[in-house]
């Protein structure tokens, strides 16, 4: 799966399932965690979705803004772990 389509998939998941605004698009550089857009109760949902969809595990201790804070960083993380 390519970088852009990973971002697209993540964007739809966050808009539909976490924000409940299906029409909303999320910019690649838009802060997700530090801005509070994704609240702490939803972080584990995001991690489980990433695991189910891309087969990449994100540990609970990595679920913070210093590991990834936007779609660009998250998709890079997914790609680098898929390659490993």
């Amino acid at each position, binding site marked *: 799966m390519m970088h852009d389509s990973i971002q697209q998939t993540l964007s739809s998941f966050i808009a539909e399932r976490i*924000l*409940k*605004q299906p029409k*909303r698009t999320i910019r690649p550089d838009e802060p997700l*965690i*530090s*801005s*509070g*857009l994704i*609240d*702490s*109760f*939803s*972080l*584990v*949902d995001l*991690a*489980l979705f990433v695991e189910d969809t891309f087969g990449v595990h994100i540990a*609970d*201790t990595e*679920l913070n*803004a210093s590991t990834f804070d936007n779609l660009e960083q998250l998709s890079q993380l997914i790609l680098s772990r898929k390659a490993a």
Partner: protein
Amino acid sequence: MNNFSQVLREFYQREPERVIVTLQHPNQPDYGITYRELVECANDYAMAYAQAGIQPGEVIILILQHGKDLVYSYWGAVLLGAIPSIMPFLTEKLSPERYRADLSALFKYTRPTAVVTYPEFEAEVHALMTASSSTVREVFVAGRIPRQEHLDFDHLPGLQRQATDIVLLQHSSGTTGLQKGVALSHRAVFNQLDAYSAAIRLTQDDVIVSWLPLYHDMGLIACFLMPILRGVHVVQMSPFDWVRAPWRLLRAVSDYRGTLTWLPNFAYNFCAQKIRDRDIEGVDLSSWRAIINCSEPVRFESHQMFYERFQAYGLRFEALQTCYAMAENVFAVTQNDLNQPPYVEKIDRQAFHEKHLAHLALDTRPALYMMSSGQVLPNAAVRIVDAHGRDLPERHIGEIALKSNCMLTEYYNRPDVTRKAFLPDGWYLTGDYGYLAQNELFVIGRKKDMIIVGGRNIYPQDIESLACEIPGVHPGRTVAFGIFDPLQGTEEVALVAEVDINDQAEQEQIADAIRKHIAKNSAIAIRYLRLVGPKWVLKTSSGKVARSANKEKFLREFGEEFGIQDTQLS
């Protein structure tokens, strides 16, 4: 014994090497604190407070997260005879301006003389100290408290406190909550612990496992003060760690043979839905004798979901229990009999909604499952009253009024608020709706507009005023309310805001700005946000926002748009 310090001295002398608190942190070995270490390190804090001139009876605010310093600084305040209060700490997501505003709100009535915090936050508190009205004289920084070589327990001023003296304050979060500190006496806490530990048959063989924050009554009383004052081992993890990895709770129960846990209702759903098998491989939950559901309305469906998910790991159905509690009563008002599962009944849906009656449903009628919060503890009495304070019969829904021997002394420095909370004959009006049937108390929800998300109390007016700070939103024309989500087992926050702009793109920008502003300033996620045109929001004749009427209008007009099922209870 008259006070906390005397109890602590007894354990310190009798069982100094008993591990009483175990702190868990991810990727670190667990840290066990004995009574000896607890007392010695608390003494370091007590001496530091005393040397800075902090006096018994003064308030010390603790702005600390899960960890050793929170434990030591709390008991240090107790040993000095000062009044500790844990600030509902705010995360890095919050703006410094909001933190300052929250602290100012807290300081306004609480009038603390000292604050304990982390190095990262020291400058912030100092800045606030210089404000002319501030009563804070000293900021203590965790990690910089000098060690004392000697411990002279018998001369610690905490030993001299009277049973009726205030021992601690509890606040709920948000600007409104921070201005209402619940002040509790030593005696009130002891009376609660006597009644409650008998109800749950607490023994020193019990092991409490908890992820609850200590600024909340459920965490502070059931999972911090009760175990330490009763010699029961407690294993604690941080709420921040648990919410990212709910399996840690189950793993800790298995590792420590945990017997008791308290959870808000949403946590049953959260654990059932968000834990993978691989994270709990080999976990054995058979030691868990009670998992007590408390601090938001309890749901039978949540218990079922939790049981079905974890029964294969040795979880017993009878372990799923309920309780009704509030900070103003120290903690528990009711507790279910631990020998059996909570009583569940089916009531007629129509009579409930239209007549506020909880009649048992005939088989053919649409019904609601109601789960009891248990029986009133022997040290308390409960009445159900109407809007005029008159008693209502069984199965009539009204406000829960309470009297007990463990009530708050006052809302700290708020005689006006304290007076309003009580009926003339001394009954405390809880602000919760419920009904009694066959000695069981069923709690339905808040009478006032407060929203409870995951056990956390949220005042809608705090959210509404934040939304009004966004350009484009009509000042005074926003309304916030809670909507119960059966999947999550808790309420979600909905917000409606009036705007003039019709342009779709501009509206999206405003919606975004509102979300971010509220997340940054309150750490609350708005789940349902709807912008509307002028004159949508309904107001009462006196110009107040009528939240329940607006909620009904919202569900009617937009329920389908947001995919909200018609499961609203009130």
